[in-house]
């Protein structure tokens, strides 16, 4: 749940979501869920001529699975805190896996 928690700290910030189909949408992060689905408000598309169907959209819900990147503002990210959180997440994931019977070896 590391990145779910991380994105919750980004709510209210200006972000650019780049999708796997190259569509890039800038907007204010309104909400995120555990699948990393993203809701943006007051959006504008980076290359509007290529995407005429997006012109009349103000707010949108983006399915997490189609996201390639999310560009963030570096001043909003505490990198030291993030690295510590990543180490803790790695440790807890490993412990969870050790606690489970290993199906592959059975």
């Amino acid at each position: 749940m590391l990145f779910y928690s991380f994105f919750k700290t980004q709510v209210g910030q200006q972000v650019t979501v780049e999708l796997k189909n190259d569509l890039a949408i800038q907007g204010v992060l309104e909400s995120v869920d555990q699948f990393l689905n993203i809701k943006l408000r007051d959006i504008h598309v980076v290359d509007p001529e290529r995407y005429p169907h997006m012109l009349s959209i103000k707010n949108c819900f983006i399915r997490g699975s189609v996201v390639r990147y999310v560009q963030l503002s570096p001043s909003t990210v505490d990198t030291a805190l993030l690295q510590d959180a990543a180490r803790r997440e790695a440790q807890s994931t490993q412990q969870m896996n050790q606690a489970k019977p290993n199906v592959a070896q059975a």
Partner: protein
Amino acid sequence: MSFAPQFFTTAESLVDSLDKKILVLLRDGRKILGVLRSYDQFANLVLQDSLERIYVRDAYGDIERGVFIIRGENVVLLGEIDCDVEDALPLRQLPIQDILEMQREEAEEKARKDKLRFQLLHKQGFSVDFADSDLY
């Protein structure tokens, strides 16, 4: 395995769009407009009075699709339509037969160029498997 209910916030985030006119962008590139009537945590959707809108450059054409149920994995994006902005767009509506013909020409041209591109990229060691499955 059980999830705490607060994690299922897809429901929370789509509730504002219920009974409103929305645009759904699908993974195969299709654009569906309609009124959102129901959804679940996978972003499975039910639209009423739906239209499939085909865009080719600055023109578009519509096909009526009635009630449309969309499996969540095929959803790219769901957008709330601002009707005032929509009416003022510099796009022209054409008869659907004309649009379908234009769309076919555009697709053939793209397929021809993609084939050449993928041949060259493959030689450079790049994966081209997105090409077949994700044309949206």
